């Protein structure tokens, strides 16, 4: 990471959803701790991958950054400006710079609007009049995302899932954002289409220099797309590192377990040892004390139950590689570095 101010700086971000109950007077009886103290930065033009199991708070994080939800605590700073609790009017100038791509291409496009209207909507709202008119800009955007510009007047139901997602990308690009939060942008698509959309996003990221927060549960896609990867578990980041570092030298037991679960594509090599995690993810209403992963960790001790491990650069980590674990894995315990394309990097 550079020394200059990062594009997005998130510190101690927390979101608790209150649970109401009781009769006759309803009161808050508990909270779902969806996101509990996240710290990370996104540099300009960088892509940060956010991985984790279902329900670990990835999507909530995305919605907090884009301010679709009000954070319970913590701080979100965009280019040095605190936007944690900014209202709609204060956010207006920033809205155009932080955009979002949604998971479900069937729900994220208004079925009653034409593609042209969907893509020009953001420009209309922010009163942007590009040279040559909005329609020309929409055609350009359609071309950028690989759709026929003549499809301007069509309705979303006339497109396939992959094409719809491209329309979603075009809408996000309409305001020339600096940061795009992509909330599982390909998980609702066919595998054959996923790669197309990911490559499109990659092209966009490289050519337009847009920073991404890429939320996904597919490790392969995150590896393909993100320079830096954060692994989340139960509302907390357990490990964050540069891509190669994380995939070749995972220090947190959970990261290792996740990586070992990625299916193999090569047949001629010996099967790799798989770490099977026992049990389910504990409820975020009542998360385990200390380290949240300890209930499923094979290394857990007394210390893990009493003391929450801080997210720090543990011994043996490269700079920028932070792990939240009392007993980090060592390189030797990593099975043959088959995850790497370049075996020497793992040494």
């Amino acid at each position: 990471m550079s020394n200059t101010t990062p594009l997005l700086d998130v510190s101690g971000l927390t979101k608790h959803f209150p649970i109401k109950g009781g009769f006759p007077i309803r009161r808050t009886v508990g909270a779902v701790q969806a996101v509990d103290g996240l710290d990370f930065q996104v540099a300009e033009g960088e892509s940060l991958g956010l991985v984790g199991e279902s329900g670990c708070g990835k999507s909530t994080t995305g919605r907090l950054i884009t301010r679709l939800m009000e954070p319970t605590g913590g701080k979100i700073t965009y280019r040095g400006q605190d936007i944690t609790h900014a209202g709609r009017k204060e956010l207006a100038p920033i809205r155009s710079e932080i955009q979002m791509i949604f998971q479900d291409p069937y729900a994220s496009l208004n079925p009653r609007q034409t593609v042209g209207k969907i893509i020009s909507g953001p420009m209309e709202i922010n009163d942007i009049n590009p040279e040559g008119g909005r329609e020309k800009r929409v055609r350009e955007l359609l071309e950028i995302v690989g759709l026929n510009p003549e499809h301007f007047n069509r309705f979303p139901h006339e497109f396939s899932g992959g094409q719809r997602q491209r329309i979603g990308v075009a809408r996000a690009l309409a305001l020339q954002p600096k940061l795009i939060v992509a909330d599982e942008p390909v998980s609702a698509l066919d595998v054959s289409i996923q790669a197309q959309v990911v490559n499109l996003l990659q092209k966009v990221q490289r050519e337009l220099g847009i920073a991404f927060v890429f939320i996904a549960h597919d490790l392969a896609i995150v590896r393909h797309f993100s320079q830096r990867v954060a692994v989340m578990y139960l509302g907390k980041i357990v490990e964050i590192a540069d891509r190669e570092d994380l995939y070749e030298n995972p220090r947190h037991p959970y990261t290792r377990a996740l990586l070992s679960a990625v299916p193999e594509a090569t047949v001629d090599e010996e099967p790799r040892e798989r770490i099977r995690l026992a049990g389910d993810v504990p409820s975020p209403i009542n998360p385990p004390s200390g380290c949240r992963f300890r209930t499923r960790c094979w290394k857990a001790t007394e210390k893990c139950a009493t003391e929450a491990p801080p997210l720090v650069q543990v011994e043996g980590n490269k700079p920028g590689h932070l792990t939240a674990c009392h007993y980090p894995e060592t390189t030797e315990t990593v099975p043959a570095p088959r995850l790497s394309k370049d075996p020497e990097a793992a040494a």
Partner: protein
Amino acid sequence: MTPPTPSQATPLEVTDEDSAASAKPATLKGTESRSPGRLAWTRFKRDRTGVISAFVVIFFFVAGICAPLIAKVYGKDPYTTYGQNDPSLLNDFSYPAGPNGGMSGDFWFGIDPQLGRDVFTFLLYAIRNSLLISAATTLLVAFFGVVIGLTAGYLGGKTDYFVGRIIDILLAFPQTLFFIGFWPVMLTILVSPDEATPTWLIVVSLITVMTAFGWAPIARLLRGEVLALREREFVEAAKVTGASPARIIFKELLPNLWTPILIQATLALPAYVTIEAGLAFLGVGLSDPTPDWGVMVQNASKFYQGDITYMLFPGVTMVIFVVAFNLLGDSVRDALDPKAGR
């Protein structure tokens, strides 16, 4: 670990999917598009019952709107007491002298007993007045229902709670009893007892009171629809770009709600026709010299043992109209919402 490697295929250029899609506009010319509305229209045109009912309904509306014109061409008006002016038209018991309620080349639908007014023009004006009142009520009900329902659904929280309770009370309220019980009281407050109640006041108050009770079901229905829609991602997408709540409600949500609004309105209108006629029959609302379906039925009920034709015309026309409009409503629903199929 397998990074996806489809890049050789240069997916951004031409893929099967894209070429299949770009083959179509060659014939459709790209600009031509099948909007959801147009698709519904195509489906509607295929529905024979719907098209026939639509023609019947349009016929009634045209007849109502053109009533003065038709009356002029026909050469009679609904107020002249032809039977009194020409004693040969009524017999000693003040019933029409001719057969079938006095139907003849001069009086196509006959004349009414006692006063001997022309039934045809009276019926035309009755249709005109009934449709005017019910159409105005439907429009107002739809308007208030939409505005209140959308607001309550979108804002949620306390607003939603209070609107919900008001709707509960209105739905539980015995409407007809209210009309019969409070109507005369209301009018005596507005009009001094020694002068006649002006017709416009009756019409306006009728529409007002029916609207006051009528918006509740539509508002409740739309509130539910909005609750489902506002969690959709396209609403979030609009929020992310900084759209105001007003824009989200009217530009994003409302276009998705035309289907239930249209369906509710087409089902509400015939209901108001019957309610209005029922009230007139009960002596609330429009009364005798003013032509109205309910007034005609009320008059006819005094004579139908001696002269059934007089009852037949308002009764049959009203049944035809209400049945046709209800069938039209069903067809509109089927066309707009094909998944709801029966």
